[in-house]
C-alpha cells in the first residue's frame, strides 16, 4: 500500500516562494539546484541577419560554455559505469617476459584486467599499423600501455595498476634522431629500418644555382617536442548493446577514421561500431586517432558494464602524440641584390616510437620548407625516423611551424648580411599570383605581398624607431 504523505498548504507555499518575497523563512533545499539560467534567451541580432556569410555570428555553444553547462565526456555517467586506468611501461625499450595481474584481479572493487594478448588485432595507426593498443611482446617507448584495469572507482583502478607486475628484459634504445639514421643504430621496430618515410622534391638544378650565386648561406635550425595540451584530456566511455554493437563516446576529431580503427582492432564490422564525439575540449591535432577506445570497449565487454577512461595529464604527455622535433640544414644561394637563386634543404624529423601522421607531416614540411618564395633551383630531402620516445603526430601546422622557423630565420640572416630591410627582401622574393610552387603547381589567390604590406603598415614598420 502506498504511503501517504501529507503536505500542508502552508509549507508547500513556503518552498515555492522566492526568498524574501513573503516574510516567511524559506527552507534550504537539501540538494543544491542546478544553476538557474533563462531558457528563453534573446537571440543575438547577428544570428538573425541575412545574408549569413561575412557576419560576426556568435556561436550557439558559447552560451553553454559560459554557463558551465557544456557536457564533456567526463561529465557523462551511465548506470553501473566502471572506471579504467592503463598501466604505462615506464621503460623505453624492452621485451616483455611476463605480466602478472593476479594481485590486481584479487583486489576488491576490481572487475576486470586486460592485457594486449586479449586484443583481437593488437595494432593500429593511420598510415602504418605499427602501434600496439597495449604492448604485448615488446615495449617501444616509456608511455606504452601494458595492461588496463576496470574498477568501481577511479582510485581503485589507480591502485590496481600499481599491483600489476611486468617482467622486462631491457633492449638497446635510441633517442637521438641523427643516431637513429645510422645503419648501426638499434632498430626500434627491428628488423625494419628506423627510416620509415623519405621525401624528395627537385626543381631546376640546385648545383648550377649555387654556382651562379654571389653569396651562400648555410645554417642548421632545430625545434623541440611539444604537447598539444588541450584543456580536456583524452576521454571516452564504451558500452555494448544487447545485440553486440559497441557505442563509444569519445573525444575524437575524426570519427570516421576512429570507427574504422576500433572496428579493425576489435574485429567487428563497421556497422557494429558507433562513435559519438559530443563536443571536444581542444584538439590541435592530438585527437585525430584512437588511443584507449579499444581497451575500454574490451573492458566493457568483459564486465558487461559501461567503462569510462580519462587520461591524466601525465598520460596526455607520455601516451598521446606530440609535435615532431626537426633538425633542418639550410643552404641558400643568393644574388647580390637579394634574390634567392637556389636552396637546398635537408630535414630529419624525430618520429618517436610510431608513425602516426608522420607521412603527412613530412610531406607538408617538404613542400613548404623552401618558403613562400620564387626559387628556380631546389632540392629538398627529408627523412622521418623512429626513436624510443613518445610518438609524434599531427599538431597544428603539420611540420609548417618547424620549417617556417628555419626559412624565416635564414631570411633575416640573409637580409642582415646584404644590409637589406627584412620586409624588402621578403617582398623581393615573395610568390605572386600564378607563381609555380616547389612541386610545380601554379598558385592562385596568392595574397602574400598584401599580407606583408598590411602587417607592416599596421605595425608601423617603416616609421622611424624610437
Amino acid at each position, binding site marked *: 500500500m502506498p504511503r501517504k504523505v501529507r503536505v500542508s498548504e502552508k509549507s508547500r507555499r513556503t518552498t515555492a516562494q522566492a526568498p524574501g518575497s513573503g516574510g516567511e523563512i524559506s527552507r534550504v533545499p537539501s540538494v543544491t539546484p542546478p544553476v538557474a539560467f533563462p531558457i528563453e534567451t534573446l537571440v543575438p541580432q547577428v544570428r538573425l541577419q541575412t545574408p*549569413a556569410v561575412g557576419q560576426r555570428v556568435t556561436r550557439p555553444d558559447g552560451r553553454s560554455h559560459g554557463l558551465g553547462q557544456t557536457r564533456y565526456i567526463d561529465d557523462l555517467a551511465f548506470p553501473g559505469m566502471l572506471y579504467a586506468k592503463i598501466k604505462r611501461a615506464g621503460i623505453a625499450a624492452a621485451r616483455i617476459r611476463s605480466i602478472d595481474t593476479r594481485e590486481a584481479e584479487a583486489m576488491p572493487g576490481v572487475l576486470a584486467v586486460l592485457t594486449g594478448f586479449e586484443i583481437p588485432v593488437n595494432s593500429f595507426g593511420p598510415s602504418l599499423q605499427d602501434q600496439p593498443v597495449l604492448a604485448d611482446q615488446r615495449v617501444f617507448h616509456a608511455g606504452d600501455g601494458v595492461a588496463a584495469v576496470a574498477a568501481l572507482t577511479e582510485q581503485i583502478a589507480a591502485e590496481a595498476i600499481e599491483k600489476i607486475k611486468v617482467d622486462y628484459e631491457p633492449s638497446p634504445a635510441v633517442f637521438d634522431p641523427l643516431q637513429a639514421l645510422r645503419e648501426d643504430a638499434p632498430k626500434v621496430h627491428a628488423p625494419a629500418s628506423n627510416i620509415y618515410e623519405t621525401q624528395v622534391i627537385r626543381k631546376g638544378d640546385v648545383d648550377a644555382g649555387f654556382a651562379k650565386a654571389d653569396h651562400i648561406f648555410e645554417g642548421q635550425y632545430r625545434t623541440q617536442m611539444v604537447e598539444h595540451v588541450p584543456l580536456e584530456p583524452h576521454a571516452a566511455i564504451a558500452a555494448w548493446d544487447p545485440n553486440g554493437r559497441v557505442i563509444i563516446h569519445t573525444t575524437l*576529431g575524426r*570519427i570516421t577514421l576512429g570507427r574504422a580503427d576500433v572496428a579493425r582492432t576489435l574485429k567487428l564490422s563497421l556497422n557494429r561500431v558507433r562513435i559519438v564525439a559530443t563536443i571536444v575540449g581542444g584538439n590541435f591535432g592530438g585527437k585525430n586517432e584512437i588511443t584507449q577506445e579499444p581497451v575500454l570497449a574490451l573492458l566493457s565487454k568483459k564486465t558487461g558494464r559501461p567503462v569510462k577512461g580519462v587520461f591524466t595529464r601525465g598520460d596526455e604527455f607520455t601516451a598521446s602524440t606530440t609535435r615532431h622535433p626537426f633538425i633542418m640544414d639550410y643552404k641558400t644561394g643568393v644574388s647580390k641584390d637579394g634574390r634567392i637563386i637556389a636552396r637546398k634543404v635537408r630535414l630529419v624529423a624525430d618520429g618517436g616510437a610510431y608513425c602516426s601522421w608522420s607521412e603527412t607531416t613530412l610531406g607538408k614540411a617538404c613542400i*613548404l620548407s623552401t618558403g613562400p618564395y620564387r626559387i628556380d633551383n631546389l632540392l629538398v630531402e627529408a627523412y622521418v625516423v623512429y626513436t624510443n620516445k613518445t610518438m609524434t603526430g599531427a599538431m597544428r601546422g603539420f611540420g609548417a611551424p618547424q620549417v617556417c622557423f628555419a626559412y624565416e630565420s635564414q631570411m633575416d640572416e640573409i637580409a642582415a648580411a646584404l644590409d637589406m630591410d627584412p620586409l624588402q627582401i621578403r617582398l623581393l622574393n615573395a610568390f605572386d599570383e600564378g607563381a609555380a610552387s616547389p612541386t610545380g603547381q601554379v598558385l592562385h589567390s596568392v595574397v602574400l605581398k598584401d599580407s606583408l604590406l598590411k602587417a607592416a603598415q599596421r*605595425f608601423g614598420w617603416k616609421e622611424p624607431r624610437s
Partner: protein
Amino acid sequence: MKRRGRGIACMWYPVGFTVAANPSAATVKMNEDGTATLLTGTVETGQGSLTVLAQIAAEELGIATDDVHVVSADTDAMPMDTGAIASRTTYVTGNAVRLAAEKAKLILFETAAPMLGVKSEQLEARDRKIQVKGFPQRNVAISEIAHRAQVVMGQPPIGSASWNPPTVAMDPETGQGKPFSTYVYATQIAEVDVDDETGDVEVLRIVAAHDCGKPINPMLVEGQVEGGISMGIGFALQEQILFDDAGLQVNPNLTNYIMPTSLDMPEIEVDIVDSYDPTGPFGAKGVGEPTSVPTAAAILNAINDAVGVRITSLPATAEKVLAAIKAKQAQNTPRIPAR
C-alpha cells in the same frame, strides 16, 4: 637593461592534406517552416566550425544562421567526413555543405517556379524569400514554399552532397605534382623586450595579417589567430618536453612544462587580407593551423633585432638567450694580446 626589438615572418600553408583522398559529405534538410537542419560528420573541437558551416548552409538557402541547426559527430547518423583536421573544415566540408544546401534549394525553386510564373533558373533565395532575379518584389516567403513542397507537392526539400579537393599525385622521384587544392598566406610581426641581464623575453605586441579567402565569420577568424599566436609563443619561448638519459619524460606535468598563460599574452592586432578563392565555399579557404605557424619565427627574429643574438634551436628560454648574450659579450671583449 630591457632592449626592444621587432621581427617579421611570413608563411604559406595548404588547405587539406596530401597522400590520400580527403572527402566530406553533408546533408541539409529544410523543415516545413523554412528552418533547416544540417547533418555533418565533422566534430566541433572548439574552433567554431559548426557555426561557420551553419552560415554556409544559411547563405545558400537564403536564410539566417539561427535558422540552421547543426547536428554532428555521430557515425550512426552523420554523412562521412574526413574530420576536424588539416585546416580543411571550412573549405572541404564547407563545399559539401554548400552543395547539399543547393540541392535542397532546387526543390524549393521547383515548388516556387509555378507560383511565381517563371522557370526555376530565374529564381534566387534571399532574405528568407524565394524571389525572381532582378525582380525582388516578385517573391514568396521560404516558409510558405517549404511547407508547400512537403505538404502539397510531397517533395520535402532535402539535399546530400560530397566534395573532394582535386589534386594530382606527386612524382616520387621529383616531388612534382599538385598536392593541395589551394594555399593561404600570412605575415606576423612581433615586438619584444629582451632583458639583457636575465635573458627574459617579453612579447609586447603581435600584428597578424592573415589570408583565409573570404572570411565566413571574421570574429571566429580573429579568435583562431589569437589562439594560434598563444600556441606560437609557447613554441617560441617556453614549451619543451624533456627526456632523461633512459628516455623517460622529465616534465610530464603543467608544473614543469611551462606554457603561456593569459599574463604572457601580448597585444594582438589582427587584419584579414582581402582575398577570394573561387574553389572555396563563397570564396573561403581556411585559417586554423596557419595562425600558429609564423609566430615563433617572428619572435626569434625580434630577439635578434633586440640583442643581436640568433637562437637557432627552439625554445628560446631565458637561459638560452642569456647564454648567447654572454657568449657574444665575451667575444666582443677585447683581450690582452699575447706577447
